[in-house]
């Protein structure tokens, strides 16, 4: 049966929503996910039944989304959680774990700085906590950038659920939302991974590699984050220059009270220069190790360097070579190809054995 193009469900990619990114939009294309018949799909489309859809955020959208999450979604979620509403989700729990994540640092830092007796060490400990967050964020950004560049996988890709919630596509290592990826994205990933273009099941081949890549990225994020945070909080924070930077020896006051410097912008520029020079001083002081450095410091630094190199290697290397079946598999060849290898690797060995036996016309 051929239908006119206006009735046929379109099979191209999802609608990108620049500039809005606000919950409440409806996609006319998303109904293909439900495996509906074309007429029902058409009905649902004209009735604007919401579906899950990918979101294509630009920077402004991301900023707006972050703002909404922090100041609107999070308080609403907390109220919902305290009442014990039934519509709370796992992603809401994930959102609420941001509260202890940042609150802990705040409490620790304020308690260090409030205990006025040991000001220098308190300042350094506070700087260590700041560097912890910086390190974890840096590791996440690095890994995301690597995988976006090399494999075309955007690990921060968001999608909007039918009920309006916005979640991460790769939130779960077990079940990423492969169904939401568009053919274009699959094509790009396939090209970047070096998978041959004329595959029978292109998407399945991509999915296997994406799963591996996501697993690796998760592990890399954790290891790199702990290492960066360790070098930051345990090593870089041990400089006395932090006290100059944070606690102040009057240098910043001088800049802001000096009558010779004209204008606010100049003052801002001067203070940024001041902070930059102190920062570079800290880096030079701590990252160039002398003879007196402890072996553990050297070990931690070299381990970090090695892990960063490993991440680069992971991102730059080609996906593991594999024999792909590039022609469509006819039903009489299901179970084994001409080379005698099993092509359909789904199911247990026992199931494969049974399928093979049945198709070869063996026992019954």
């Amino acid at each position, binding site marked *: 049966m051929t239908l006119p193009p206006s009735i046929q469900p379109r099979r191209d990619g999802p609608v990108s929503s620049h500039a809005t990114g606000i919950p409440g939009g409806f996609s006319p294309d998303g109904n293909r996910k439900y495996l509906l018949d074309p007429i029902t799909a058409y009905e649902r489309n004209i009735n604007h039944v919401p579906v899950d859809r990918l979101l294509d955020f630009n920077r402004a959208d991301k900023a707006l989304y972050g703002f909404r999450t922090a100041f609107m979604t999070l308080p609403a979620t907390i109220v919902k*959680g305290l009442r*014990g509403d039934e519509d709370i989700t796992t992603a809401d729990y994930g959102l609420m774990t941001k509260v*202890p994540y940042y609150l802990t640092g705040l409490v620790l830092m304020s*308690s260090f700085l409030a205990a006025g007796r040991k000001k220098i060490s308190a300042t350094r400990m506070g700087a260590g906590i700041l560097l912890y967050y910086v390190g974890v964020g840096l590791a996440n950004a690095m890994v995301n950038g690597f995988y976006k560049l090399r494999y075309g996988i955007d690990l921060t890709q968001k999608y909007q659920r039918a009920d309006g919630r916005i979640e991460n596509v790769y939130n779960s290592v077990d079940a990423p939302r492969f169904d939401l990826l568009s053919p274009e994205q699959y094509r790009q990933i396939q090209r970047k991974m070096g998978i041959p273009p004329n595959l029978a099941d292109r998407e399945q081949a991509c999915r296997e590699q994406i799963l591996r890549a996501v697993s690796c990225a998760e592990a890399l994020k954790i*290891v790199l984050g702990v290492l960066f945070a360790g070098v930051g909080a345990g090593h870089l924070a041990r400089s006395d220059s932090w006290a100059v930077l944070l606690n102040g020896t009057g240098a910043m006051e001088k800049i802001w009270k000096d009558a010779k410097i004209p204008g606010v912008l100049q003052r801002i520029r001067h203070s940024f220069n001041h902070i930059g020079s102190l920062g570079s001083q800290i880096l030079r002081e701590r990252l160039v190790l002398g003879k007196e450095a402890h*072996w553990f410091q050297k070990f931690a630094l070299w381990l970090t360097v090695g892990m960063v190199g490993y991440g680069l290697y992971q991102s730059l290397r080609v996906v593991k070579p594999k024999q792909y079946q590039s022609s469509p598999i006819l039903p009489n060849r299901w179970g084994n190809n001409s080379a005698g290898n099993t092509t359909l690797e789904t199911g247990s060995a026992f199931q494969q054995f049974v399928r093979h036996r049945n198709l070869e016309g063996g026992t019954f």
Partner: protein
Amino acid sequence: MPGDYTISTPQYHYARLVPSRSLSQYGIVPVRTTNALARGLSEKSMTDYDLKPVKDPLAIGGGVILASLATLGAVGKTLGVGHMVGFAAWLGSLVLGPRFVNWMVKLKTGVNLNQDYVNTYDERYKLYRDPQYLPLHLLPDEEINRIGDRLGLPYTVDRRRQVEEKIKQISIQTRTWWLLTAGIVVPVAASGMNDVTRDFFYGLISKLKSTYHTQFGLNRTESAPAMMRHLEAYIDECIGKDNHSRLTRWWDKFDHQVVRQLGLEKVFKPHDVVKMPDDKLAAELIRHFSELSQVPEKRQAMDEVLQFLVKQRRALDSMEHEVLNTIGQHQGALEAVDKRRVEKLIGGLSRRKNNAVSTVMHYEVLLKGIKRGEISKKEIRWLMEKPVVGEVQRLIEQGMMEEAKTLAGNPNLFNEIRRLLYDKSHDRAAELMGESPRKHLLHAMKSYFNKRLWRTRILGMLGGGVAIATLLFTALIVGRTFETRRGYEP
């Protein structure tokens, strides 16, 4: 039958309830974590279940301590052990905190929120981990009925459904409350545990250290470690204490001793003392002393304190003297002296490591002549700010080095000061006491009163507030019926 393969079923596990982990069973967690990370990095598959034990503590901020552990070698063994204990206390409060909240909820409603279950893949989860999938059908009818009775629900047709809805609400409320309060509870509980266990661990370490020194530190040659041991013995002799950590702890407590003995806590107000500049505070102190010396019973206490102050000053200066001598003997080979060891030694003696570092740096400057090319201006300023070095710095500027040494080493000084105080010539006495003891006293006062300000108690106040709020929340809000909003149902 289509084939015999339907009869030979695979080994199939059913989901089942299991008792929650005891504390000793948490030992498997690091093994599983390492395994998961290794598998992830080697491009094999990794599941959410594998990642769970890493992600949960990191989300609560335990990584701060994990991170500072990563380079603990820099600070020395004593502080390293402190880090370890802190890390253990942190993880302990991570485990015990939710259990405590759950226990309170169980007291009220009878729902055991610590319940674990094992799913068909042999993975152990918390029963109430995922609000979108609560396998409450695993709970037996007796349990459901018990909770229903506790909550006062009627025996109707859909009783089980009603009870399950209530359990779900309670679990969500408790989990949310824990997430909100974990950021405060975990640091407070961990710091409390550390305060309790601190003395024990430091005593243990100092014992081990002294054993090590007596067994292996016999050779008093010119090598740096032997030099240090010699110095340690000398200072122990001066002060009459047998090890450094005890000295440090005793010195910490000394602040309070002095202030209480002199009765300063009743005279001054904390806020004034902390904000007052040093000169003014010193003047106030002298005025107070003059009043004190007229009261016979206070005079004895003041006498003791002054004796102590001068003794302490003498010990400190003789330590400096000794270090000067020992370093001076090796002045030619000063480059070869292990700077870190000197730091370590003096770090045990002075209260703060900063003092130690600056002292060592100062001696370098002192012996080599101030070479500004080697030491930056910033470092020199740091040196000048140190109370330990400030006195010496002043003497260098005035060129009165010998005078200072003789003054510090003079045993008759104390008697002279006491005589002057009894004659009520306080200014002259204070002048003779020198800057250092007075500075110590000012420092003691400031730190004593600092501890009594509200901002230094904010951590404890936060902890207590959270405990009270948890009580109120459990009593008033958990399990209460609200007009909840349903989710989207297509």
